[in-house]
């Protein structure tokens, strides 16, 4: 492997770790589908950036930031139409994104891939993972209180609305990190499937966080190994096209199915 490829592998593993942590809290906050919503919002930004020959991740980041603020406002308003609004934004963003993205880049935008990383993007990626892990560590107690009861958390002095905004921003940062490797269609799955595995296997918070992160990292390592060494696996005259993103999510799904058979820790 070349050094830029090693950068890429290290970053995808660390992204998996961050996705496991954030996914655990997202699952407890009943935001399981938020990963899909947020990642689809990234798509128009990605498409516009590609059209204007900019770095696609910069376009995605801007779109994600705007989408995050929008979702936060919708959450705060807590009206009956929030779900509907999110549903409309999610599908509209997907459609606009597909219309805008040049066709030669569309598959990669939707399903990701394994690309070499420059030292600068590797450093930025490491910084982003650091921000996510530090956020979870620093705000874990406040997150726990607001999960249990936003009202009780507020009475204890937690600024619940601000905490929700921070969580959504960090959630979007996790989506942005995974976008390069898994694409807009699959990155949500890396956030939620490992957390679902962790939840199946554990019943304490610490064990849940550890199991989710471990399941996420394991899915990425297995998916990477398969896509690297068996990208066109043939079984019963059918050739499977195992590129990185689909291979990771396929492995995560298999681990989830296996987790259904296990007793809780």
């Amino acid at each position, binding site marked *: 492997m070349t050094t830029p490829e090693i950068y890429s592998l290290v970053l995808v593993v660390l992204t998996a770790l961050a996705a496991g942590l954030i996914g655990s809290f997202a699952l407890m906050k009943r935001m399981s589908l938020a990963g899909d919503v947020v990642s689809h919002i990234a798509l128009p930004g990605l498409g516009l950036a590609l059209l204007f020959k900019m770095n696609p991740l910069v376009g995605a980041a801007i779109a994600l930031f705007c989408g995050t603020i929008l979702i936060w406002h919708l959450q705060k308003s807590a009206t009956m139409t929030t779900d509907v609004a999110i549903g409309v934004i999610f599908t509209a963003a997907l459609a606009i994104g597909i219309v805008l993205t040049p066709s030669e880049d569309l598959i990669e935008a939707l399903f990701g891939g394994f690309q070499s990383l420059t030292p600068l993007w590797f450093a930025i990626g490491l910084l982003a993972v650091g921000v996510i892990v530090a956020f979870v560590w620093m705000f874990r*107690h406040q997150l726990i209180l607001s999960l249990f009861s936003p*009202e009780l958390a*507020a009475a204890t002095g937690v600024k619940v609305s601000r905490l929700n905004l921070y969580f959504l921003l960090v959630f979007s940062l996790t989506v942005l990190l995974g976008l390069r490797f898994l694409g807009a269609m699959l990155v949500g799955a890396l956030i939620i499937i490992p957390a679902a595995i962790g939840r199946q296997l554990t019943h304490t918070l610490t064990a849940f966080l550890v199991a989710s992160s471990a399941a996420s990292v394991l899915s990425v390592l297995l998916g990477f190994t398969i896509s690297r060494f068996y990208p066109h696996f043939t079984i019963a005259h059918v050739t499977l096209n195992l590129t990185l993103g689909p291979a990771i999510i396929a492995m995560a799904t298999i681990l989830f199915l296996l987790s259904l058979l296990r007793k809780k820790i």
Partner: protein
Amino acid sequence: MSLLTVKNLSVRIQDKLIVEDVSFDLSERERLSILGPNGAGKTVLLKALLSLLPSTGEIRWAPQARIGYVPQKIDAEIHLPLTFNDLFQAKCSTLRVSIHDASGVAESVGLTKEILATPVGHLSGGQFQRGLIGFALIGEPNVLLLDEPTASVDEPGEEHIYELIHRLQDERNLASIMVSHDLSFVFRYATTVLCLNRQRVCFGSPRDALSHDVLEKLYGESVGFYDHDHHVSVPHPVQS
């Protein structure tokens, strides 16, 4: 000495006036019960006192007031992997108090290590309520705000919870504001009662304030109650 002064407090929710022009005081060690029918604004008043809802008028807590809050009901998600150990630790960390506070509190509300380590969704109503009371006591409050603390407890358990609250108030010299539907509790334990039906209907010691007229005004004529040796009780609990 007054811990809380409320003057001309009004709370609107979506343009509907829920609490109107309510005034009262709370002194140290005073036990105030809030009584009123469904939709009278009792819970809303309590939330306004905690600044959980916007209000007009004046709510002035004394600088030395440290508040513990026991909410009416928490729909704890049964699948949450959270235990009262996690919650006590989270509150200690948020308030920046020692975790040793939590172990003392757990003992005083009768929470065993096993109960503390059990996911909240798997606890009985009584255990859960003890956990919430323990949670409120972290940070050594000198005033407790309790919103129908026995709402999710079965009838035999209600008495234990009331006795626990009473004992804790004695041991820790706590003032309290409690929303309660149980008139017998109000007569046994409250030093002051505030009758609420959007506006203040009565305020004073239970025996002086809770006349037949006041209770009829609050609950209507269908409510049965009787005087017996200067004790007033209801044959069936009056749901508020």
